[in-house]
Each structure stands twice: as structure tokens, then as C-alpha cells.
């Protein structure tokens, strides 16, 4: 009560100043009338002071004055706001990405607290997905969750009026929506009863899909969605904005997990992954029950694993790690975290560099204001009162800069995602939320303090009248010059760091792509053609392996005969990108199925990438054969199984021996049938998995001999990309209209996608580095201009005594370039210390790449020299007479 009264009173005396003042007058007038006169001036003053006005009034006055003074130098103010805004915007944009990926729950999920992942691991290696029976056992055996759910992402080909559309979808357990605590936007969400087989042909669609594809109609509930050949009844719309439980996948349809055999057949004899423990396909996540922590959940999961391990001694032990968070595997999140920390560090270095550069400009401004400060001190102003002016000016500029920066950061954060591969969905809540604003304003505040700190401190420390008088050789002036030089050196150091980082990233990209990418990459169109879903469930005309082979062969022939098409190749994997892998052996040495399966992921076997390719593949991708022959038309169905290995695989299996003619066993191809392949050729090594990793062992098999249902078509054309894409679409549709075309893009794009992390680093670091060079040059020029202004009289005298223009230029440029050189030296040392931290992202760059360092230093040095020379040339325009007259 009392506190409230006090607050109300104080607020009133601040806000309603006039009313309070009037009341005081009236009260005193009453007293005067009673008393019959008297002097009340002192009373009035004492009462006012009580209300704390005096201090506040002077603050408001100073704030107004600071604003007026800035308005008098609009160029300076605008420059500072823009520079500060850019620094804040860059850091805030990166932080908003950081916030979206690492700190916020995914879109649509309002309650992120308590969500955990259960990740399968074996021998310390993260394996990720679990089998459905394993999930059911965990669900039955766990008490520590409000719900333990399962999900698996896949693609659905939804039949529309005009054709087929591929959408992202999730197969989910009945308690999926309960675990996420999500309600339906319309209709209902899936519940446990939907997980029963026979009652499961239902689907929940996303809010976006409902609005876009179904017009947001209420009668969409109960509509039928024909997906992958199976009719599904739409029962509800998920909460607004929700796109599934994975950060890297945007789902539009959710169906009960028990639909897997019809909707997402996994191939192989044991098609039913609902009962097989060998299918690892579900992601387990849950929400911890109130009061249960990660350790308790882990202990419980271990207990469940141990119990079931004991009950089934023949199966390998499964261990599940309970990891906090949702959306991506913990190792992915760790990798993303490292990258984002790196970017954030770069952005913060830029912000620091901005503050340093602005600090220098503020100091220069202080120099120009010596006389004013001296006058104020002479009239009796306190040092802190004078020093406060700088803080208040900085506060104005800082507020404006932070607001501008935060505003720009909103759109910039979205733009940052352009650096990521365009095809990868980003299920991220990219918004400038409260946390981002706190970051931006915190950064702005630090910048403001950094800006004003030096001038304010110098004024307060040496705030004596004599030393601030113009012309006198003052300690204040000397101290200021010292700080100015230090700031110049500091900004050069930070610029050099950013430039070296940018240079190293660019060099890494150059080395990663050298010799690995065909010259015609921009004209090579890629598209994924998947026959797997077509026809499934519609009259039993499921594509067989034979028909797959025939389909792809006809497609290839038809495409090759089109005008403008130069060459067409097929492959199951897309280089550079990850590929199917499986254990292979020297024929005759392979262990039995049970043993291989139990040790498959322990890295005890050679597990090469396995790529189904057509004969044209090696030519088109410029992979030379170093021994033996290419596949040819003779390698068809019914002939001896043949394969081509790359040099790494050949050396692994038959060290020191020629590989051609050897026999290789690939047991997974047919566990109990013939799985021996004769090596007919050895291909040169290519970094096919990723351009940033070392060469992986690779096995190539003939697509015509061993068909595969989903192939990448690579088409080298003379046509424009859009035309080529529609040509491909037409040709696929002519063969089978039900087969969708996915992921159409060029090889050049594929290379960019594969390199997006280093590209993002190089792009951002490059932008930051160039910004730093520019800001540095502006800062140097501004500081020198100020130095010339201050030393105008001295320059005039020197010129009157016969100094040449050359002397003057040398003198001024020397003043500026000394600190720059010191900054370069310091920057080189710092970069040397920090460089090892960058190495994980640098492919092929040797430690301490001197060309990059020298280039960065040269670029900085030359721009600094240019800025210094331009400033110095202005100095030579000082005429002696004018200079001497100007005081």
C-alpha cells in the first residue's frame, strides 16, 4: 500500500508537473493568507528539490542539448547511425538464426519445455532411428513421460486434379500430438485409437496445406486424399504454423504409423517394418513427466534396454540416449551449433570493429569541442557534467542505431537462409522475438558505452581548465591522441581477422571444387525419378525390378533422342551428396547374415557408397577409369554380375594387387542368393559424398543389370534450365503420368548445396571483411581529418618556413599509418592464435596459408594508405596565412 502510494506520488510529480506546482502555490497562498504575509521563495525551492526535479531537469536539458548538437552535424550523426545500425543488424541477424535453430521450439509448438529425443547408439556411434517393435517396448516400459511418441518422415505423392504433387509427410504414433501438446485448428488430431490397424486410413493436414490446396473449407474434414495410391480420409487440421517434429523437414500430412506397409514400403522381402526389428526407421521423442529429469529418464531407458536384452540374448543390445530438445539429432545440432557460434563470433567481431571505428570518430569530435568544454569548465560546470554530454550524444545515436539495426535484422535473418541450400526445408521459427530484441538492445547499449567511454573518461580525468584550452600543448590532447592511435590499431586488427577468415574460406572453396566438378555443371540438369510409389495399391500393378529397368532404359533413350539433349546418365546417388552404403567383402570371406547385421554399424566392415549407374555416368561426371572397362549394353539382366570399384575400395580390398578380374561379395544384395560381383573396372577417386570430406570407398553396379526403383537422371543439354526441366517432365509423363519428378536442379546448384556451409562462411565473412575494410578506411580518414583540423596552425607555420607538400603528406600519412601497421602486426598474431579454431571448416587449406594472410594485409594496407593520402592531400591545401589567421 505504502509503496504504491509512493510510486503514484513520484510519478505524478514527474508527469503532472504543472498541477503539482499549482497545488504548492495554492497551499502556500493559504498559509500566507492565514499568517498575513511572509516570504515563501525558500520554501518553494526546498519543496521542488524534494521532488527530485532539479537533477532530472538538468538531465532532460542535457539530453535535449545533445540532440540539438547532433542535429547541427547531420552528416556525422547519419554516418554513426548507419554504421552502428549495420554492425547491430549483422550480429542480430546471425543471432536470430542462432535463436531459431538452437534456442526456440519449432514453429507451432508452443510448449517446448520437457521435450526429449531418444537416440539409438551403439559403441558410442549415434545410429539415430529405431525399429517400431523397439519403440513399442520402450513405450510400454517407460513411466517417465507424459507421452513417448514415434515419427518417421517420408514423401507422399498426392493425386490432384491435374496430376501428382509430392508433399512432406510424417508417419506418427497415436500419441504424437499429445506428446507435443498440440490441438487441432479444425476437426481433430490423431489419437491412440488411430494407431490400430484397420482403422488407420486417416490423415491430419497442416494449416497451410488446408488453406492453399483445400481453400480452408470446413467441409475438407471427411474429404479423401489419394496419396501413394491409398485413399486417406482427412479428419483434422494441425495447429497453425506447425510443420512437424523435424527442423530439416516440412510436413504437410500426418498419418498413423501403422500405414507404413501401404504408404511407405521400404523394399526387400520383409516389407512390413511394423514387425521387423531390422528396419531402423522411427524417431522416438517424448515429453518428460513433471518432476522427471534427464538422468532419471536415462536410467529408466537403460533399465528397459537391459530387461529386453536379457529376454532376447540373441539380439544385439540397443542403448538409447535421452537427449534434451527436439528437431534434429544431437550431433547435427552440435555441428549447427558450432557453425552458428562461428558466424556469431564473426558478427560480434564486426560489431566490435564498428564500435572501435565509431569510438575513434567520437574522440575526433571531442578534439573539435575542446574550446566548448573549456568554456563550460571555466563557467563552473562539473567534470562529469561535461563528460555526460558525450554519453548522452552516444545514447541518442545508439538508440537510433539499435532500432535501425533491429529493424534491418528482421529481413536480414531470412536472407541468411539463402546461403543454405534452397531445397532443404527450414522448419524454423525465424522471428525477431523478445530474446532477439534483448540481444540487439544489449549490443546497442554496449556499443553506446564503448563509443562514449573514451571521450567521457578523458574529459573527467583531465577536466581542468588550462589543459582544455586550445593551442596549449595539453596532457588531455596527448592522452586523446594516444587513445585515438590505439583505436586505429584495434580496428585494423579486427578488420584483418575478418579478412583472413574470409580469405581462408574462399581458398577452401577453391580447393574443394578444383578438379571435382565437370566443366558443364551449369548445363547438367538433375532430377529424381521414383517409381516406388506409382501403382502401389492400385490394382496390384506394383513396379517390379524388371519393369523399373525397362522404364529407366526407355526414359534414357527417349531423352537422348530429344533435340538439344547431349547426353543422359542415370545414377542412384547424386554426387556430391551422401549415398547408400553397405558392407562388402572379398568373395568367399563374407560372414553370415546374422553376424553382419549385428555388427554392421560398428565400422568393422568396409562399407562403401553403393551407386547404381548407367554406362554414360563416368563420361558425364568426368570420372576416368584407371583400369578395365566401363559398363556397356552387354551388362544386362541375366549376365554375370559385374561392378566397378574406385581406387580407394580397390586398395582396401585387394591391397597391392590388380583389382580387375577379382570377385567381390555384397551380401545385402541377396542374403542367400548369388551376391558375388566380378570387378571389370577401376574408377578414379572422387570426393563423392561431400566435397569437404576425404574420398570414400565406392562401389558402382550396373543399373541395367541390377535395377533400382529411384534414380537420378542427369541430362546435359544446350537448352535453358527451365526448358530442359519441362522437357524431362513431359518425357516422364509420357511413360507414366503417375510418376512425379522431384528435386529438379542443376549440377552447379548441387555443388553449391553440398558446399553451403563453407559458402555461407565465405559469403558472410567476405561481407563482414569488406564492411570492415570500408569502415576502417572511413574511420582513418575521419580521424586524420580531425588531426589536420587541430594542427592547422602548426601546418601553416611549417609551410611558411618552407615545408613542401611532400613533407606535409608524409607527416600526416605517417601519423595515421603507424597505428595501422601496428594493428596489422597485432592482427597477424591474433589470427595465428585463432586460426586452429577455424580449421574444422577449412577443406584442404594447410595451416597458416601465407598467400591469404599476405593478401588480406595488402588489401587493408593499400586501402588505409589511400585513405591516409586523401586526408593528407587535404592538408597541403592549408595556406599559411589562412592558418595563422584562423584563431
Amino acid at each position: 500500500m505504502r509503496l504504491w502510494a509512493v510510486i503514484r506520488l513520484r510519478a505524478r510529480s514527474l508527469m503532472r508537473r504543472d498541477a503539482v506546482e499549482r497545488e504548492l502555490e495554492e497551499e502556500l497562498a493559504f498559509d500566507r493568507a492565514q499568517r498575513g504575509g511572509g516570504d515563501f521563495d525558500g520554501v518553494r525551492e526546498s519543496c521542488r528539490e524534494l521532488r527530485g526535479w532539479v537533477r532530472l531537469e538538468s538531465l532532460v536539458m542535457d539530453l535535449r542539448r545533445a540532440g540539438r548538437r547532433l542535429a547541427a552535424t547531420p552528416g556525422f550523426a547519419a554516418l554513426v547511425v548507419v554504421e552502428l545500425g549495420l554492425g547491430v543488424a549483422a550480429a542480430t541477424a546471425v543471432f536470430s538464426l542462432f535463436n531459431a535453430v538452437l534456442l526456440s521450439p519449432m514453429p507451432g509448438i508452443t510448449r517446448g519445455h520437457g521435450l526429449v529425443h531418444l537416440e539409438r547408439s551403439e559403441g558410442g556411434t549415434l545410429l539415430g532411428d529405431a525399429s517400431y517393435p523397439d519403440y513399442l517396448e520402450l513405450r510400454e516400459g517407460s513411466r517417465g513421460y507424459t507421452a513417448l511418441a514415434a515419427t518417421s518422415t517420408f514423401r507422399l505423392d498426392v493425386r490432384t486434379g491435374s496430376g501428382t504433387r509430392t508433399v512432406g509427410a510424417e508417419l506418427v504414433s497415436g500419441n504424437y500430438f499429445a506428446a507435443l501438446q498440440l490441438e487441432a485448428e479444425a476437426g481433430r488430431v490423431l489419437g491412440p485409437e488411430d494407431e490400430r490397424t484397420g482403422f488407420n486410413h486417416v490423415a491430419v493436414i497442416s494449416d497451410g496445406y488446408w488453406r492453399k490446396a483445400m481453400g480452408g473449407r470446413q467441409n475438407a474434414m471427411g474429404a479423401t486424399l489419394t496419396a501413394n495410391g491409398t485413399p486417406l480420409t482427412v479428419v483434422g487440421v494441425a495447429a497453425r504454423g506447425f510443420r512437424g517434429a523435424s527442423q530439416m523437414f516440412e510436413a504437410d500430412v500426418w498419418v498413423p504409423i501403422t500405414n507404413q506397409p501401404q504408404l511407405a514400403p521400404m523394399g526387400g522381402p520383409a516389407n512390413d517394418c511394423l514387425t521387423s526389428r531390422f528396419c531402423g526407421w522411427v524417431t522416438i521423442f517424448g515429453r518428460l513427466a513433471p518432476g522427471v529429469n534427464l538422468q532419471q529418464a536415462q536410467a529408466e531407458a537403460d533399465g528397459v534396454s537391459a530387461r529386453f536384452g536379457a529376454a532376447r540374448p540373441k539380439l544385439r543390445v540397443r542403448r538409447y540416449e535421452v537427449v534434451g530438445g527436439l528437431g534434429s539429432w544431437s550431433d547435427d545440432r552440435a555441428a549447427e551449433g558450432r557453425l552458428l557460434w562461428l558466424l556469431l563470433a564473426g558478427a560480434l567481431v564486426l560489431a566490435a570493429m564498428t564500435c572501435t571505428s565509431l569510438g575513434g570518430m567520437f574522440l575526433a569530435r571531442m578534439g573539435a569541442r575542446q574550446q566548448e568544454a573549456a568554456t563550460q569548465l571555466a563557467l563552473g560546470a562539473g567534470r562529469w557534467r561535461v563528460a555526460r554530454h558525450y554519453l548522452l550524444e552516444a545514447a541518442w545515436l545508439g538508440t537510433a542505431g539499435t532500432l535501425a539495426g533491429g529493424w534491418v535484422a528482421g529481413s536480414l535473418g531470412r536472407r541468411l537462409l539463402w546461403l543454405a541450400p534452397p531445397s532443404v526445408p527450414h522448419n524454423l521459427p525465424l522471428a525477431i522475438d523478445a530474446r532477439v530484441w534483448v540481444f540487439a538492445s544489449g549490443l546497442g547499449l554496449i556499443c553506446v558505452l564503448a563509443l562514449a567511454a573514451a571521450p567521457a573518461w578523458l574529459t573527467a580525468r583531465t577536466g581542468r581548465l588550462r589543459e582544455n584550452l586550445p593551442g596549449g600543448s595539453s596532457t588531455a590532447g596527448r592522452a586523446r591522441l594516444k587513445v585515438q592511435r590505439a583505436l586505429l590499431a584495434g580496428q585494423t586488427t579486427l578488420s584483418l581477422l575478418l579478412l583472413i577468415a574470409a580469405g581462408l574460406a574462399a581458398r577452401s572453396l577453391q580447393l574443394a571444387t578444383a578438379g571435382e566438378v565437370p566443366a558443364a555443371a551449369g548445363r547438367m540438369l538433375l532430377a529424381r525419378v521414383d517409381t516406388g510409389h506409382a501403382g502401389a495399391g492400385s490394382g496390384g500393378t506394383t513396379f517390379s525390378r524388371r519393369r523399373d529397368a525397362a522404364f529407366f532404359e526407355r526414359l534414357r533413350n527417349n531423352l537422348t533422342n530429344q533435340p538439344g539433349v547431349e547426353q543422359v546418365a542415370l545414377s542412384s546417388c547424386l554426387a556430391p551428396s551422401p549415398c547408400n552404403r553397405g558392407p562388402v567383402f572379398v568373395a568367399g570371406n563374407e560372414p553370415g547374415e546374422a553376424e553382419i547385421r549385428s555388427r554392421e554399424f560398428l565400422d568393422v566392415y568396409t562399407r562403401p557408397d553403393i551407386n547404381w549407374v548407367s554406362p554414360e555416368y563416368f563420361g558425364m561426371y568426368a570420372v576416368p577409369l584407371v583400369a578395365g572397362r566401363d559398363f556397356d549394353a552387354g551388362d544386362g539382366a541375366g549376365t554375370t554380375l559385374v561392378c566397378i570399384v574406385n581406387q580407394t575400395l580397390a586398395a582396401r580390398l585387394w591391397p597391392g594387387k590388380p583389382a580387375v578380374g577379382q570377385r567381390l561379395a555384397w551380401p545385402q544384395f541377396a542374403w542367400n542368393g548369388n551376391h558375388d560381383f566380378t570387378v571389370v573396372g577401376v574408377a578414379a577417386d572422387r570426393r563423392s559424398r561431400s566435397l569437404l570430406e576425404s574420398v570414400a570407398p565406392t562401389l558402382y553396379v550396373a543399373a541395367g543389370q541390377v535395377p533400382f526403383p529411384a534414380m537420378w537422371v542427369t541430362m546435359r543439354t544446350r537448352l535453358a534450365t527451365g526448358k530442359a526441366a519441362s522437357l524431362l517432365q513431359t518425357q516422364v509423363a509420357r511413360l507414366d503420368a503417375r510418376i512425379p519428378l522431384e528435386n529438379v536442379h542443376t549440377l552447379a546448384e548441387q555443388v553449391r548445396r553440398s558446399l553451403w556451409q563453407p559458402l555461407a562462411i565465405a559469403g558472410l565473412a567476405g561481407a563482414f571483411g569488406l564492411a570492415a575494410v570500408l569502415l576502417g578506411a572511413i574511420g582513418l580518414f575521419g580521424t586524420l581529418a580531425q588531426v589536420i583540423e587541430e594542427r592547422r596552425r602548426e601546418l601553416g607555420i611549417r609551410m611558411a618556413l618552407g615545408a613542401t607538400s611532400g613533407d606535409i603528406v608524409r607527416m600526416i600519412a605517417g601519423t595515421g599509418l603507424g597505428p595501422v601497421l601496428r594493428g596489422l602486426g597485432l592482427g597477424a598474431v591474433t589470427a595465428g592464435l585463432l586460426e586452429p579454431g577455424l580449421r574444422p571448416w577449412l577443406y584442404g587449406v594447410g595451416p597458416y596459408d601465407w598467400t591469404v594472410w599476405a593478401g588480406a594485409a595488402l588489401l587493408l594496407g593499400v586501402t588505409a594508405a589511400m585513405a591516409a593520402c586523401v586526408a593528407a592531400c587535404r592538408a597541403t591545401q592549408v595556406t599559411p596565412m589562412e592558418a595563422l589567421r584562423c584563431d
Partner: protein
Amino acid sequence: MSRGNNLVQGTLDLLILKTLSLQPLHGWGVGQRLEQVTGGELRVPQGSLYPALHRLEQQGWVAARWGASENGRRAKYYAVTAAGRNRLRREVAEWDRLANAIGVVVREVR
């Protein structure tokens, strides 16, 4: 020399609170009442009285409201708040302790 200076330092708040605890008064009334009660021994100058009243108001010990005075003019009346009464009890206790202590010293000397 004004007799108001006889005021023992730091006791003005106590005196005002005590006076107002009997009935709400305007500023001039407080001064009058004090002078009356002490037989003219204590006269509080307005230069001390009004800042003290305002300070007590700012601290929430007294609350002010406008009302009509005896002669019909609008006047600002001060009244002790609940928190102010607690405060007054503490101040009175403190004063008793101090007065006793001083009394002991003074009698000793005599």
C-alpha cells in the same frame, strides 16, 4: 534568534506525525497546534514545516487531500496513514529511549 531553532534536531517528523495522528490538519494548522500545545515554546518556521510535510508525504507516512478550511477556503489537509502510525510508534519509542539516556547523563552531572 528565532525560538524555532530550539527544535531538537531530527524530531520535527515525530512532532508532525504526533500532531496529525490526533486529527487531519493543514500545514498552517500543524504549526499553530504545535505552538499552542507547547505554550509557544516551539515555533516551526514554514521553511522547515512544508518541506517536512512534503517529505513525509513522498515517503508515504502521511496522505494529503484537499478540503474546506474553517473559513471556507480550499486547503490541503494532511492525515497519518496506517504505515505512518507504525512509524510514529517506532519514533516515539526511539525518542523515549534517547530522552531516558540523556536524562541519566544530565542527572549524573548534576
